[in-house]
């Protein structure tokens, strides 16, 4: 049974269709990346899931209970960090933890969670949150999202403002918690990071879900390419096409040839030599979420 399920959820702001028949689900222990361009509907969907916004039609079920606009008991088992960390400037990190821990009968151990999220050090201590950097606020926001021992954590741009070391620590933390059965729904523009982190991917654009897949399946759709620059790229392109390969002229004065069975860098080199072309540069690219996402968005003709 899904932990979170959106069924045909739609929402209009005036004439603007922010969510259009959105359906997807999040299973326990899975890390789901919700991705799409700016204004695609990610935050709107997240606000609807957390009971912060009315939606026009459809259902959102979390932990077996419908999520309603005003009151949803199940929300006690959902943590979230939407758009930016919400903090009380005169509270310390510990004050925040104590404040939000009151919402749960069985909260996480405050000191342990602070240590786990790295907000227990001398930089935090008794300092008021108004003096925190964006990265520190972000860590605090994540700690707050976890304090109620949630079954699902919704994180909107959780890596914002974090340095590479912190990004790595937060990634490890999320993976560790997912192994314990906590589900994560994460929206981020840092696609490399999502590629490392997410088990599943949901792509949304102009309020519509345009793809749902496991990250592995999604990336496997993205064929790796051999990028070759020769003394005559037009001739190289013709030679590749004559051989029945999928090839095209790319930006940067290159020919892009899709890697398939029997088609790899060595075969391309051989073909260039056969066509008496000088190879100036050759690279093999691997599957990449960002590039494939852009491809999917353009395929659908929905790219913003």
């Amino acid at each position, binding site marked *: 049974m899904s932990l979170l399920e959106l069924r045909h959820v739609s929402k209009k702001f005036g004439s603007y269709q922010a969510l259009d028949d959105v359906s997807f689900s999040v299973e326990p222990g899975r890390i789901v990346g919700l991705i799409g361009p700016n204004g695609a509907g990610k935050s709107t969907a997240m606000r609807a899931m957390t009971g912060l916004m009315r939606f026009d039609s459809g259902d959102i079920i979390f932990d077996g209970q419908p999520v309603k606009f005003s009151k949803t008991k199940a929300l006690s088992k959902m943590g979230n960090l939407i758009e930016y960390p919400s*903090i*009380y400037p005169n509270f310390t990190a510990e004050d925040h933890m*104590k404040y939000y821990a009151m919402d749960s009968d069985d909260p996480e151990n405050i000191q342990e969670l602070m240590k786990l999220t790295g907000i227990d050090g001398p930089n935090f201590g008794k300092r008021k949150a108004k003096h925190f950097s964006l990265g520190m606020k972000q860590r605090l926001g994540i700690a707050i999202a976890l304090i109620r021992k949630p079954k699902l954590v919704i994180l909107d741009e959780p890596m914002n403002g974090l340095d590479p070391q912190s990004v790595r620590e937060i990634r490890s933390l999320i993976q560790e918690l997912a192994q314990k059965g906590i589900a994560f729904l994460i929206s981020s523009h840092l696609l490399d990071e999502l590629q490392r982190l997410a088990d599943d991917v949901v792509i949304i654009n102009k309020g519509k879900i345009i793809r749902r897949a496991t990250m592995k399946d999604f990336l496997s759709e993205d064929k790796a390419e051999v990028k070759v620059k020769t003394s005559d790229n037009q001739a190289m392109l013709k030679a590749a096409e004559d051989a029945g390969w999928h090839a095209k002229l790319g930006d940067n004065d290159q020919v892009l040839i899709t890697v398939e069975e029997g088609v790899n860098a060595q075969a391309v080199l051989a073909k260039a030599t056969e066509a008496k072309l000088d190879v100036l540069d050759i690279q093999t690219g691997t599957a990449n979420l960002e590039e494939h996402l852009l491809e999917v968005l353009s395929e659908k003709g929905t790219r913003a």
Partner: protein
Amino acid sequence: MITLLKQEWMKAVKQNRFYVWAIISFLLPVVTLIWFIPAESQTLGYAALGGAGIVVAIAASVLSALTFTQEFNFGTIRPLLSRQYSRLQIFISKIVMIVIEYVIVLASAVLGTLAGRLIFQTLNGTTGTEIDWQPFLFHQVMDVVMTLFFFAIVILVSNLVKSSAAAVSLGIVLSIATSIIAAITTSLVQFWEPLKLNPLTVESFLSQFDGTSAVNFALHMYFGADVWVIWVVYVGYLVLLYLLTFLIFQRRSV
């Protein structure tokens, strides 16, 4: 509800430091009554809580305006609402906490007034320091009751505009100008009789209520109704204002 009240209390103390208002409200009458108000004016000074009355009014304005607007300004409105509680519970917890904070600030001003009086008596003797306890305490209770109306307007505006500055400004203007506005509307009553039942006039006249037959008679003469009817109208306005404010709060997507 208890959890929500505890959380509001934590914000009142740690975030808004409402106790600063309580401390000022305590110290101001002590200072003014001992050093600045002569024996012949002491009784009047007690009625004005040694000058702390205005501090209490400003505190009421600031604290009530902040309670909702700061959640929007800090972005904490989202975690506040995306919890297992209903918006009605959250709304009520905030109103209750404002009243608690106000009562504490007012009580500090009263205690400061009494402390100032005591010290003044010790230094200068008891001449001129008489207090008619019943009306003095009755006035404080009335102050709390009438401030509920003031809170309702400030909270209504703060929910509409989501701006602390606008709500605080309005609160301060209201705390000073209510009687002026009421006087203007009262003068307009001659053109249209039902205008006398407008909320500001009702609040302004009812705030004079002290339980004496003279005031009861005056209220009866002006409104052409028994005092209890005027109270019912006042409570009706309160319910209407809080209901309207709640509906705005309840419908707001964040």
